[in-house]
């Protein structure tokens, strides 16, 4: 069982990397998607992790969303879809997240949504 403290420290470190990379949106998104807290048992840790990703996504301009999604690998796109659903739970920044969801569905297809629904490794 992974230590919550270690996971939270990793998320805080990830947040710092993302904040420093905000001027380079594609790199910020990739950095935010690194090291997902799959083994976490605390809801708070997962929400903190999702917040980092939503922050990175918010830095990308609307016209660049498609190109950023293209630059991600298949596994990263699946992970991003899981994070988008996490972000949509609260209802904050929903307009931004809907754009990302639409772009991801177009590029990665229904399979991406299916994997977000069925994989036991939840982000």
């Amino acid at each position, binding site marked *: 069982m992974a230590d919550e403290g270690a996971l939270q420290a990793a998320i805080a470190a990830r947040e710092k990397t993302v904040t420093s990379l905000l001027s380079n949106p594609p790199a910020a998104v990739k950095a935010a998607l690194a090291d997902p807290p799959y083994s976490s048992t605390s809801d708070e840790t997962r929400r903190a992790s999702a917040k980092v990703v939503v922050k990175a996504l918010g830095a990308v301009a609307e016209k660049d969303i498609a190109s950023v999604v293209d630059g991600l690998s298949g596994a990263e796109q699946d992970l991003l879809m899981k994070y988008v*659903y996490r972000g*949509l*739970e*609260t*209802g904050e920044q*929903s*307009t931004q997240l*809907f*754009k990302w*969801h*639409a772009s991801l*569905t177009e590029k990665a297809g*229904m399979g991406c*949504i*299916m994997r*977000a*629904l*069925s*994989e036991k490794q*939840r982000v």
Partner: protein
Amino acid sequence: MSTAQQPYLACVRSTLTAALCLQNFGCQEVERHNKPEVETGKASEVILNPVVIARNENEAVMIEPSVNSVRVSVKIKQSDELEEVLVAKFMRFLMQRAEHFLVLRRKPVPGYSLSFLITNVHTETMFKHKVVDFVIQFMQDIDKEVSGMKLGVSSRGRVVAAKFLEQFTY
């Protein structure tokens, strides 16, 4: 009004299309029985991850998929007390006639205004894209209906008050 809702409805539509891949799955505990697994909630291996798509804190859709059934719960926007009462009464009216809707659930999931229960039998007998269209259309029309009812309440109140107060004038 509806153009702002389009991305939200598109997201719900694609998620619902993916979630509605259902197949027959007999009950694992009782032989010869067939139950909607999302409702029994006992076996974790046949239940998929629930997803909440919230537009803001008042409007949300929760989709709980499983191997043979999907539960879609809708939280309808209620901005004041009058709308809350109207929505509650309207939903009660619809839920009492749930057999006519086929896919409606008689009780909403706690925290939501209305719930649909779509099983593999429904996807086998009806077109899947039509079922999705129905849910999306429902979500679109509900807001219009509720605001129409609200206007109706205030105009009826005005007419009744005028008639009543007429008797006090010369």
